C-alpha cells in the first residue's frame, strides 16, 4: 500500500458517504415519489444538492473501480465500510438526525471490523495457485515494495 492507494480508499469513503447524504438532502426538497410517478424524478435532476450528490457518486464509482484493479474485494469492502460511520455522523451534524445508542453500537462494531482488515494485506495470493503460496507472497511483497519506492 502506498500513499496513492490510501488516497483512493479515502476518496471511496468520502465521496460515497457525501454522495448519499447529498442525495438524501436533495430528495427532502423533492418530496416523496411513488413508483407510478417515476417521471417526477426528472425535475429532481435540477436540484443542486442532487446534482452534487450524483457528481460525488460518479467519483466514488471511479475510485471504487480503481481500488478493485489492485486490491481484493474482501479488502476494499470492509476497509471502506467506515463510510457508513461517516454517513451517520454527517446525517447527525448536517441533516440533524438523532443517533440512538443502538446506532452508536453499530458504529463501534463497524470500526472494530474495519480494524481487522486494515492491518492485513490488500491483495491475497489466489487459492488456485496455492502450491506456490510462499513464492507468490514473496514476489508480491517485492512488487509492492518496488511500487512504493517509485512513487
Amino acid at each position, binding site marked *: 500500500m502506498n500513499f496513492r492507494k490510501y488516497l483512493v480508499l479515502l476518496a471511496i469513503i468520502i465521496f460515497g458517504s457525501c454522495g448519499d447524504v447529498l442525495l438524501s438532502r436533495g430528495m427532502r426538497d423533492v418530496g416523496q415519489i411513488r413508483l407510478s410517478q417515476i417521471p417526477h424524478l426528472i425535475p429532481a435532476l435540477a436540484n443542486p444538492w442532487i446534482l452534487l450528490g450524483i457528481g460525488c457518486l460518479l467519483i466514488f464509482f471511479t475510485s471504487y473501480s480503481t481500488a*478493485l484493479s489492485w486490491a481484493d*474485494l*474482501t479488502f476494499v469492502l470492509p476497509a471502506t465500510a467506515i463510510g457508513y460511520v461517516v454517513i451517520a455522523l454527517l446525517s447527525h451534524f448536517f441533516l440533524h438526525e438523532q443517533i440512538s445508542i443502538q*446506532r452508536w453500537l*453499530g458504529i463501534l462494531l463497524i470500526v472494530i*471490523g474495519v480494524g481487522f482488515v486494515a492491518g492485513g494485506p490488500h491483495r491475497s495470493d489466489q*487459492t488456485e495457485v496455492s502450491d506456490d503460496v510462499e513464492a507468490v507472497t514473496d514476489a508480491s511483497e517485492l512488487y509492492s515494495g518496488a511500487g512504493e519506492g517509485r512513487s
Partner: protein
Amino acid sequence: MKSFYTWASIAVIVLASTGGDVLLAKAMSKIGDVGLIRQEHGMLAVVRRVVSSGWFALAICCMAVAFFSLLFSLSWGDVSLVAPAAASLTFVANALSAKWFLGENVDRRRWIAAVFVAAGVALLAR
C-alpha cells in the same frame, strides 16, 4: 404473505448487488492496476480497456438491477427491514462469493471483519 415478498425482494437485492460487486472486481482485476496503465499508456487507454470489458458491462447491469429492485421494494416494503438486511447480508454474501468465484483467500481476519461490519450495518441502518 407480505413477509414472503419482503424477504424475496431482499434476496433479489442481495444477489444482484453481490453479483455486481463480484463482476466489477473480476473486470478490474483482469484489466490490472489502472494507475500503472495510465502512467504507461495514458488515460484514454484506461477508459478503452474498461469500456470494452464484458465483465464490466455485466457488473453495471447487475448493479442497475440491484438499484431498481431496492427502489421498488422500498416503495412498498418495510424500509427498516429491507435496507439494513440487504446491506448487511450483501457483506457476508460478498465474502462467500469472493472466495468461491474470485478465488480470494478469505482468511479468519477477513471473515471476522465481514461479520462485524454486517452486524454493525444492521444496527446502524435500522
